[in-house]
């Protein structure tokens, strides 16, 4: 008997196993919950259901009900309810659970359906896996192995289609590999609202293309590459560069805005090859912006700082730290912290500023939000600066108060944590008036003007946490080793703070978090290690009144 369940749960029977699943779940997802794989291509949990690939066909039945008494008819042999099986197979993606629903995913009919669809998908497929970027993460390969017959009966000529269409600046299409699942079309139409893709021609000659005069050029175009189940859509950047099975995957966070899209960084032997989104249904679903994927290029970009400098001469970290402190000893110090620093770094930055009795500033970085996954606040961690107490109010444009203080002669030394002060609004004259200590990754006007330069790391070379626009604290992990000559920001900051007289723990995440937990009430229960991969929402009420710049975006609504 099907046990009665909570009103919002529906009990279904999948291959003899009973499971209660939320109403509205489809058969593919319900089966997933009992560990049963229903192979599929066109279905994507974040897109509308079109039911075109027919790979997910299953058998479905409902308990027979006596029309007179409305009670279930029992099978005399087993004493269990008799099931009326629908003779035609049904699509699992388009079939939602209903009470008493019975599903067979392993019957001879289902097996035959899958073998048929697999065979059909392969007859006109070029089978060029040896030169295909998707190999290793290809649903066609996986499901051909899992559900196909393993041999071909096709002796005819295969269809010929365009092999390398530039759909846009970042996406290359091989139409022969396309299985016409329409995921890419639905994604760009439904999620990005940029309806540019479609099929032309009919039947097996159907061909994916852009509408005349259009391009797949939106800032989310590379998500089509991620969701393409085959190697039809490829990233022009990643194409032919590396076999995916050689790549190490490291969880990270997109730092291009306060959205904090969850990502995976794919690297091999210290070189990053691509960044892809990581599913977080509270933040970015399964998507991320193209702009965020390019960020790995900063690791090897020209101008990367790898030499410690004091007064323009090569130096050592310890000498540089001493020199920095020397420039701060007479007071009149300003610390320019960063909304790009991690929570841990901001906390130590605050320690440093306190020890130096310095004023603290934060660089504001605002641009138009796209309503999806790039928010107006282009700093990934302004809220971290609030939570750690580095700042109490939101940063204003152009470092206005710092500029005024320099003009007034109150500031003699500026310690900049990764921020280009010129870019942030200080004039060349203002820069010339002060002594600059610069911690950073790339050369710029500030590093050029600095008396002390301490090379630090990009987000890909270190670990830490960020607090996104939702006040969700999320962690990123070191994907590749630091370049020789550059030091972890946390280490540099801790050295400076200690030299300035502050008490800071060893520059190591566990120790830092132990200290943070005792000092920062909002973070008292958190450690880096126990932070879930999808992050943790902090209580935002202390900052509810602040006029944050973000507008509405995916999974985020600004407080009124």
């Amino acid at each position, binding site marked *: 008997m099907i046990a009665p369940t909570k009103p919002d749960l529906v009990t279904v029977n999948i291959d003899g196993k009973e499971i209660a699943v939320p109403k509205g779940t489809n058969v593919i997802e319900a089966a997933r919950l009992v560990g049963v794989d229903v192979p599929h291509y066109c279905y994507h949990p974040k897109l509308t*259901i*079109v*039911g*075109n*690939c*027919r*790979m997910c*066909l299953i058998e479905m039945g409902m308990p027979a009900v006596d029309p007179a008494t409305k009670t279930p008819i029992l099978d005399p042999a087993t004493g269990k309810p008799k099931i009326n099986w629908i*003779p*035609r*197979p049904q*699509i699992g993606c*388009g079939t939602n659970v209903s009470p008493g629903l019975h599903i067979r995913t392993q019957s001879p009919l289902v097996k*035959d*359906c899958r073998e*048929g*669809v697999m*065979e*059909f*998908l392969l*007859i*006109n497929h070029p089978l060029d896996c040896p030169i295909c970027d998707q190999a290793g993460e290809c649903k066609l390969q996986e499901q051909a192995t899992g559900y196909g017959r393993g041999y071909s*009966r*096709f002796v*005819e*000529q295969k*269809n010929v289609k365009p092999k390398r269409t530039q759909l846009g600046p970042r996406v290359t299409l091989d139409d022969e590999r396309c*299985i*016409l699942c*329409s995921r890419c079309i639905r994604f760009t139409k439904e999620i990005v609202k940029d309806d540019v893709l*479609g*099929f032309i*021609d*009919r*039947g*097996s*000659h*159907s061909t994916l293309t852009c509408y005349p005069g259009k391009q797949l050029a939106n800032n989310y175009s590379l998500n089509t590459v991620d969701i393409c189940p085959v190697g039809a859509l490829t990233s022009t950047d990643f194409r032919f560069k590396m076999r995916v099975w050689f790549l190490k995957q490291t969880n990270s966070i997109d730092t291009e805005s306060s959205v904090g899209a969850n990502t995976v960084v794919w690297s091999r032997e210290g070189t990053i090859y691509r960044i892809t989104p990581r599913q977080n249904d509270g933040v970015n679903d399964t998507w991320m912006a193209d702009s965020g994927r390019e960020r790995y290029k900063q690791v090897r970009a020209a101008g990367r700082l790898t030499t410690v400098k004091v007064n323009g001469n090569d130096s050592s970290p310890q000498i540089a730290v001493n020199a920095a402190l020397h420039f701060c000893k007479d007071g009149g110090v300003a610390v320019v912290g960063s909304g790009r620093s991690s929570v841990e770094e901001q906390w130590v930055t605050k320690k440093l500023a306190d020890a130096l009795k310095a004023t603290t500033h934060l660089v504001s970085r605002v641009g138009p939000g796209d309503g999806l996954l790039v928010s107006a606040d282009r700093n990934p961690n302004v809220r971290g600066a609030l939570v750690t107490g580095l700042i109490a109010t939101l940063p204003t444009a152009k470092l206005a108060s710092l500029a005024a203080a320099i003009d007034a002669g109150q500031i003699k030394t500026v310690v900049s944590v990764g921020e280009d002060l010129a870019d942030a609004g200080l004039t060349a004259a203002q820069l010339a008036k002060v002594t600059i200590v610069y911690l950073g990754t790339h050369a710029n006007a500030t590093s050029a003007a600095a008396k002390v330069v301490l090379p630090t790391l990009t987000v890909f070379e270190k670990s830490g946490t960020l607090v996104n626009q939702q006040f969700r604290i999320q962690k990123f992990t070191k994907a590749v080793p630091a370049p020789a000559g550059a030091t972890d920001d946390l280490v540099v900051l801790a050295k400076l703070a200690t030299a300035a007289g502050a008490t800071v723990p060893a520059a190591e995440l566990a120790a830092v978090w132990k200290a943070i937990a005792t000092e920062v009430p909002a973070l008292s229960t958190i450690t880096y290690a126990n932070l879930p991969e999808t992050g943790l929402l902090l209580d935002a009420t202390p900052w509810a009144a602040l006029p944050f710049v973000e507008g509405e975006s995916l999974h985020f609504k600004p407080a009124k």
Partner: protein
Amino acid sequence: MPAPAQRRIIFAHIDEPGYTNDLPCYLKHGGYEVLKKAVTRPPQELIDEVKKSGLRGRGGAGFPCGVKWGLVDRKSGKPIYLIVNADESEPGTFKDRYIMHQDPHQLIEGTMISCFANNVKLAYIYIRGEMPHGARILEKALAEARAAGFVGQNICGTGYSCDIFVHRGAGAYICGEETGLIESLEGKRANPRIKPPYFPAVLGLYQCPTIVNNVETLCHVKYIVEHGGDAFTRIGTPNNTGTRIFCVSGHVQKPGYYEFEAGKITMGELLNDVCGGPLPGRKFKAVIPGGSSAKVMRFGERYKGKRKVGADMVDYDWGVEDVPMDFDSLGMIGTMGGSGGVIVMDDTVNMVEALANINAFYSHESCGQCTPCREGSLWMKKITTRMVHGEARAEDAALLKSVADQIPGRTICAFGEACSWPTQSFIAKFGDEFKGYADAKKVAKPTEEATLI
């Protein structure tokens, strides 16, 4: 026994000398009198008449029209649309076009009555793209009817308003499938929709409840409302009420369109007595009874079983010639009445070549959404094309059957059945011809690459 006489109720004036397709002629023959009366009756009464009549859709599936109207979601508060399916593209079928060309006001009257019955305020006639002449005639007829107050605002002075627009189809067979048609009418590719959830009666045109009926079906509605549902049941046979129009093409002496009471005429009577039998010196070999997608019948085969006659079950033992031409009888013997397109093949026809032709059509017309239909239809076409081009293999028959078996019942729309039934039935009935084709034909490989389209 001679064949029964034609009973022309829909084709009453088709090819009648002096009958023109303008409004004055239609009015002279009693036109729009049924509509005038209908709009004074309660709409439910009209629906009940249609239910009582047992009218089955003439578009192909034979679904009861009254039941279809009963499924319409009338509680949603959304407008209800009616679409006239005038896409007539099933090979072998040519009845709707004659109605539209020669008697368009009959269709308009039937449509308006159906609209009034179902509280429809806007209807579309979706006419096959390749019928520009028909579209022009309909436009003109609609303009006349609008001017005379039969279409548009305040119909016949009752306060009821409903307009009809002609929409020219997108030039593909799949545009005739009702959900593909709806997509096309919305301005998109005619990709059929999945059902559930997109049953037209609930989520049709613009996601509103929608009725899709064939041209001929709606003409029958006019007859039913005029004469009553009971009177209609007295035409034809039980469960196969009214008349059927047969479009006979192929190897008979007198191909053409003929209207008979459903089930009152047999295949033999239709082909021999009405259509004059085979061409001189030829013999009938095969016939497809309901449009090219219906399963083929082989002359000489016998169909045996039990069927219901009145309250009794009686044995039947039929040859092709004995089969009554109605939905149920043709369905019983494993084929279908479909759209009424009767395609006759005599002993000059090679079945492999005939199937190659049909397969070429279906592979060209698959919309391409579902894997089995898209790939299967083209694969079957490639096999039969290769066979007729001289490279047949003994194993092709089994392969064709196996490919065809992987399609029906596994697709979004009934095109999956339509494209696989020909192959399944040709192989089942003429398997020997397929197996022996390589030897029998001995066609040299063509020197140039020739293709069948």
